[in-house]
């Protein structure tokens, strides 16, 4: 062995029914570096790391840790090898304190009067405080998880690994849920960890982050390792091209907007959530034909509730919603749809699709009850098939069995294509996009951005709600920044800089 590799995955292959997730992949990670895994969705990054963390076993190939061949059969074995992983979805007990979450499973024990064992939370708190100081991971160990925000929860996950003395830290898309400012601080933490001697593996499809922190970067495409590069001296465009396998358009082509008549008018909208808590607190704005109005904001500030209220999924407690001249405030979902609302919801699995229906039934979800799909309550299967075939072709939905593909088995990108196709075909004056590109890869994002601009150019009013600031800056004609259920500032996109929007999002700056 010429170099000191802490992790070697040699010729690893992993197959799932119908797909090769990793095909003969070899990666070698040096001790003390930040090693990025870059690839589109479904490229096999997460699968590869799941094998390193013991959640799957490779079908072929070997894993070597610290120069020794290992069979990692379970996450607990991986932990014993000092490997830790922060998952995309946090695994925390929400009514436990931060310290309790961190020590769960490895509780320090003491015996009272030398007899009765109890959990020594004091020592734990001390240890957590010293760890968090060492790496700049600011948390209060005595706070309960449900009371802290997403970025704190993520820090708790990191501390959990450090508490278990992890030396090799795997981050699975860690910035997906964070604001720009939070991302900066996370990247700083990751650098601190490396400087403290840890080895970091970072799974991501965000090129900027790799550019900022990573030392080396492995690019995966469709399960195969394309290349391993030093990040220095490589620009993001080159990374993108390697990742997608073709030339990528980095900027959205956009003509200047031509505003038409007013399509959506929201007046002093107030919405309560299921817990009777007011999440939208008096929001007013309007959108014209040919305008992309974007709401920027940190997740959980009421933006998706605005969309749900407009679409009729959440009741309005006061205020007015006027669509294309019709007051829809008290209308049923069906009537609103017919009044002219298309809606691409945030959660495609639980809202946008019936996963156990096949593709054609999902594509007809908005119009199954109308002619020619149904006559006098009786369905016409031929219409479903024809319409499905038409949309699959027009929107390039890739699916194994065409019309009869069960939607659950499709990839996220193709599910989203189906929803967007279905909603655009509604040809409604107002289209609402909520997080339209969440979890999608660069090729799909490019495509969806193009569709959103096309809708605008066709003279539709577009409401775009996104947590991705880059997306908003690239697409919006007008931006409203939401913070704590209120729109802080509404202004033409040209009048905002990215960092300014970020400040409004954090509530640092207020509208005067």
């Amino acid at each position, binding site marked *: 062995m010429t170099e000191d590799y802490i992790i070697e995955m040699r010729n690893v292959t992993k197959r799932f*029914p119908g797909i090769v997730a990793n095909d003969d992949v070899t990666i070698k990670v040096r001790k003390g570096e930040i090693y990025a895994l870059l690839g589109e969705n479904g490229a096999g990054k997460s699968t590869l790391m799941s094998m390193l963390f013991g959640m799957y076993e490779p079908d072929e190939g070997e894993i070597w840790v610290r120069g020794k061949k290992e069979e990692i059969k379970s996450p607990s074995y991986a932990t014993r090898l000092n490997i830790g992983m922060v998952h995309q979805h946090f695994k925390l007990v929400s009514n436990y304190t931060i310290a309790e979450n961190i020590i769960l499973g490895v509780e320090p024990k003491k015996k009272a009067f030398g007899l009765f064992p109890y959990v020594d939370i004091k020592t734990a708190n001390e240890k957590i405080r010293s760890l968090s100081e060492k790496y700049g991971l600011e948390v209060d160990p005595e706070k309960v998880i449900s009371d802290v925000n997403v970025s704190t929860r993520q820090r708790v996950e990191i501390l959990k690994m450090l508490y278990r003395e992890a030396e090799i830290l795997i981050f699975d898309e860690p910035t997906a849920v964070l604001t720009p400012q939070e991302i900066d601080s996370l990247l700083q933490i990751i650098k601190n960890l490396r400087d403290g001697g840890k080895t970091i593996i970072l799974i991501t499809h965000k090129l900027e982050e790799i550019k900022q922190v990573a030392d080396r970067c492995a690019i995966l495409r469709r399960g195969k390792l394309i290349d391993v590069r030093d990040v220095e001296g490589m620009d993001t465009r080159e990374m993108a091209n390697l990742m997608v396998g073709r030339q990528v358009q980095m900027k959205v082509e956009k003509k200047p907007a031509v505003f038409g008549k007013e399509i959506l008018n929201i007046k002093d909208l107030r919405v309560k959530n299921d817990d009777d808590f007011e999440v939208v607190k008096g929001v007013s704005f309007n959108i014209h034909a040919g305008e992309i109005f974007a709401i920027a904001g940190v997740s959980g500030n009421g933006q998706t509730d605005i969309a749900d209220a407009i679409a009729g999924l959440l009741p309005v407690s006061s205020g007015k919603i006027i669509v294309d001249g019709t007051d829809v405030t008290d209308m049923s979902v069906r009537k609103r*749809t017919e009044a002219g609302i298309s809606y691409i*919801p945030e959660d495609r699995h639980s809202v*946008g*699709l019936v996963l156990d229906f096949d593709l054609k039934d999902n594509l007809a*979800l*908005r119009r199954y009850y109308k002619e020619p799909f149904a006559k006098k*309550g009786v*369905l016409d299967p031929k219409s479903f098939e024809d319409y499905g075939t038409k949309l699959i072709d027009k929107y390039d939905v890739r699916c194994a069995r065409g019309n009869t593909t069960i939607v659950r088995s499709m990839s996220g990108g193709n599910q989203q294509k189906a929803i967007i196709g279905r909603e655009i075909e509604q040809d409604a004056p107002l289209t609402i996009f909520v997080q339209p590109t969440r979890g999608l890869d660069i090729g799909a994002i490019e495509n969806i951005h193009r569709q959103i601009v096309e809708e605008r150019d066709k003279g539709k009013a577009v409401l775009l709600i996104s947590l991705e600031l880059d997306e908003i800056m690239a697409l919006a004609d007008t931006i409203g920044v939401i913070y704590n259920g209120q729109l802080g500032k509404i202004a033409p996109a040209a009048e905002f800089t990215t960092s300014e929007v970020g400040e409004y999002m954090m509530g640092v700056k207020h509208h005067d």
Partner: protein
Amino acid sequence: MTDQNKTRIRVAILSVLLSLLAGAVVILILGKNPLTAYFNLLQGCGLLPKGKYGGGKSMITDLSSYIDFLTPMVFAALSYAVAMRAGLFNIGISGQMLTAGFIASITIGYSTLAAPIAKPLVLIIGIIAGMLVGSLIGFLKERFNINEVVSSIMINYIVRYVISFFIQTKYVDPVSRQSKNICDSARLTLHQIKLGGYKYDIPLGFVLAIIAVIAVKFMFDRTVLGYELHAVGSNKVAAKYAGIRTGRSLIVSMAISGALAGIAGVTYYLGYFASIQPKVLVSTGYDAIAVGLLGNNDPVGILVASFLIEIIQNGSAYMSSQSGLESEIASVITGLILLFSACNAFFLEKLAQKKAEESRKKGAKA
């Protein structure tokens, strides 16, 4: 037929075979010959000839009474399937059957109406009674978010004791300790009809059962209502997003489910039997769950599954008299079928894995 359906049918057959095999082990332990026992089951249902027949009886007599016995089950299982389609678990089918049977008995069963009027009226009253109980469960779910399993079990208790109170105080037959027999003109089974020297029970309801199977199948696959119920059952939030009034769908599915349970009730209490035993809920409503599961909630699958399960239930008396086995062994086998069909997700998964393995091997060779 899609591959998926083929796999499902294969899994259903597999679970039946497995349960018969497991049942055979039980019978062997009891020291009897399982093959003879299973043979006796078929003989008891008139599907195989018996050694000898009593006066006025033939294989057709057995077959006709088997179909008479089967009819309520087809309706009950359809009732289960319709509720299940909208994601509701109607465990109150027996209670709905009893309610329909009792109300039809006291209104029409004891009247002097002529058969052409009485029989349709029995049916209509059964449908309405069942539908009302079903809708009540759906309404409680929609308005107060009361779990349908809880409310239907509670309603089962209520109707069981309220009805047995009325039977014992007003309609009891002092000899049989059951409700008095209804008159023949109201009965949905033509009882002990003599044809060519043999006696038969002709279940008029069976024709209706076949029609109901076709109607429910059509409703599921080809109507807006069926599409909506399925959407609500698969994903309530997405259904709401699609503009479906989900609350209304829940009530409608329970109303239809209740109506079918109502027909099951009248074909049972005013067809197969002519009276009601107080304080007892028939097991049909519960066996219907096994039938629904085995038939994969598909109306045609259900028809086949009810044929099968009712062979075991109906043939058990003859089996018991011939081989000396307890007739309860039938319930053991039915229970095993329920168990194995409930495991079908596991079998499906295993089959899918095996398929993937095979195609990989093929791919590797090529």
